[in-house]
């Protein structure tokens, strides 16, 4: 199993998103790219930047970036520990967003409007991480 955050993990995630029928159905209206910024904690010594271009239930592109670069629609930023808690199922991603554990930069309206998409997106991430 690929470790998080790594290019191998990101490739696996893209593959999963593009193969998952449930995700394709639930996220069919989603339009917007996003960037995970994972701040160093525990064994992670440098910030990691994972970019995903998500469009109508598919993942069109992924990329490991050196920094934030060109601003995507959403930037989701937190420490490594919180990301791992989300991936392990200990922390609900909506809760994390609303309680500052996962900082969101972008249109909250879109995020709140697409709760099922957000949760199913995280389900896919969990399934390749556990």
């Amino acid at each position: 199993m690929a470790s998080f955050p790594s290019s191998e993990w990101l490739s696996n995630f893209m593959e999963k998103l593009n193969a998952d029928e449930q995700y394709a159905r639930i996220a069919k209206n989603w339009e917007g790219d996003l960037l995970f910024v994972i701040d160093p904690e525990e064994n992670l010594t440098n910030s990691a930047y994972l970019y995903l271009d998500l469009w109508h239930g598919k993942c069109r592109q992924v990329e490991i970036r050196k920094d934030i670069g060109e601003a995507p629609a959403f930037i989701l930023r937190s420490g490594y520990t919180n990301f791992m808690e989300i991936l392990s199922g200990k922390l609900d991603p909506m809760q994390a967003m609303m309680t500052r554990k996962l900082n969101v930069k972008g249109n909250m309206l879109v995020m709140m409007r697409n709760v099922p998409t957000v949760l199913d997106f995280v389900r896919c991430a969990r399934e390749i991480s556990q």
Partner: protein
Amino acid sequence: MQPILKVDLNTGEFSEMPIPVEWQKDYIGGAGLAARILFDYLNIDLDPLGPDSPLLFLNGPLSGTFGPAVGRYVICGRSPLTGLWAESNCGGYWGAELRRTGVDGIFVTGKSKTPVSLILNDRNFELLPSEEFWGMDTYDYQREILSRVKCGGRALSIGLGGERQIGYSSILADHGRVAGRAGLGAIMGSKKLKGILVKGNGFPPIARFEEFDVIRSRTNRALKNDPMTAVLTELGSAGAADYLDYLGEQPKKYFSAGVLDGSEKISGASISETMLTGKKSCHGCVIACGRVVSVDGNKMKGPEYETLVGFGPNVGLTDPKFASRMGDLCDRYGIDTITMSAGIGFVIRMRELGKLNLDDPLFQRAEWGSEDFVEECIHQTIQQTGLGKYLAMGTYRFAKQFRLEDEVVQVNGMDMAFHDPRGSSGMSIVYATSPRGACHNQSDYFMADIGHVDPSIGMEFYDRHAGAEKVKNVIIHQDYRSIFNALVMCYFANVDPESIKDLLNSVTGFDQTVPELLQAGERIWNLKRMINFKLGFNISTEILPKAVLTPYSDGGSSGYELPFEEMMAKYYEFRGWDPQTGFPSELKLQMLGLARLDSS
């Protein structure tokens, strides 16, 4: 603090009411201080709508200071709806303006022979004959009184609901800011007090202004950057409605259904996408959760979460425009939207189940998803004709006439707010033990159940469907929110306890600690309970209605059964209350400094 103005409507006399400094420390202000003041006045023989019934408008120590979300005040008395403790706090600008007159509260007793308006223009007080305003809706009154008196300022008033003493009448200020629940508007109506206009030119007293100003700026900046603020600013109080719906926490069809087609339209996001034209804030608030919407070309206040659900999924509807119109109608009439919509939902549900059959043409039209039926119910309630005669009694009293009280989703006579405890188990304890009935404004624990917990005051996060293990957490949250209701600070303000303590100390000049404030919260919670015992409360009614103890068969909380009895047993134990009577133990009363009150 500044004095409280005492007004006797029997005689038209004004006087000032001194407040001991110890009370300001022990009960903070707002609803806490109001409970201490009214403890001496409220008793079981007092008719809530009689001339002796007191009505207290009170600010908190932070009200109107431009601190974080503190442009609020509270109104307290004995509820005509429940017969128990009543408090209802309200945003807008009226409370801040009241403080600028040089008084922090208004204590009204007596009854005027003819309609009057109370005018406070700085320290000049007057009772203005108001026959010509009697019969006006709340919006017209606010406009007309300002036009007549010409001193500027802010007005609050009752509408037809309060004039006709309907038990769930509200009080409105600042064009759509509502003290909604518990029927305090009916007390104003019984006193023939149509409204209160305040105009002041002073500034609230702040003991250590420079210190306060630094903390105020810091906390307002932090609040502005809080993610929940972003949700509330962008989407209003219904910002989390999509998530709550997903969790099965948003009730449908009078708490009988877990899902409803089209419920995705019932959300702050939907309002923003389809009808939002502007935003409104209360005095000095950086959140600005208030909505301004356009409905069929008419500009009006947008519905907050409760109104949106009450006149939406609760009655089988999913049109935010319709919910906005019904909210506006209730505001103009001056009646509480939660109670009104709950009563209508109850009628539809009872007809669906065949448990109620009235020989009434409107009743025969009671069905889910009928806009005409809902709107006609509101009009008839105000007219107190037909089905409206029953609805005007309040759902519990209405149901009791037909021996259907077990079917009402209520506690202690107050209809449940639209946060289903099956989606947030902590709310089961909150509803059962709230001093004013099944309300969400003594503790919004549903937010704790989705992660809003503060470890610095001993709270931990528990799953939203956890049981007795979270009871201590609920107690901490209730005590903490009692501080908010005393300050009076909006629950939407995500401000940390240390900052609250610093803000309060810099304003009062005291040097209280966070544990002392939490103890004050606990003291206030217990005092309100003691008041309820004085008013005839006993624990036989401290139960949940059977509707919410029945698991949903669908939706985000399907199959979940509340372990209510187990949770309540723990609750009494942790609170230090007698398991047989529910009364605070002698030791608890001594610890909180309430033993002397008990013996008196």
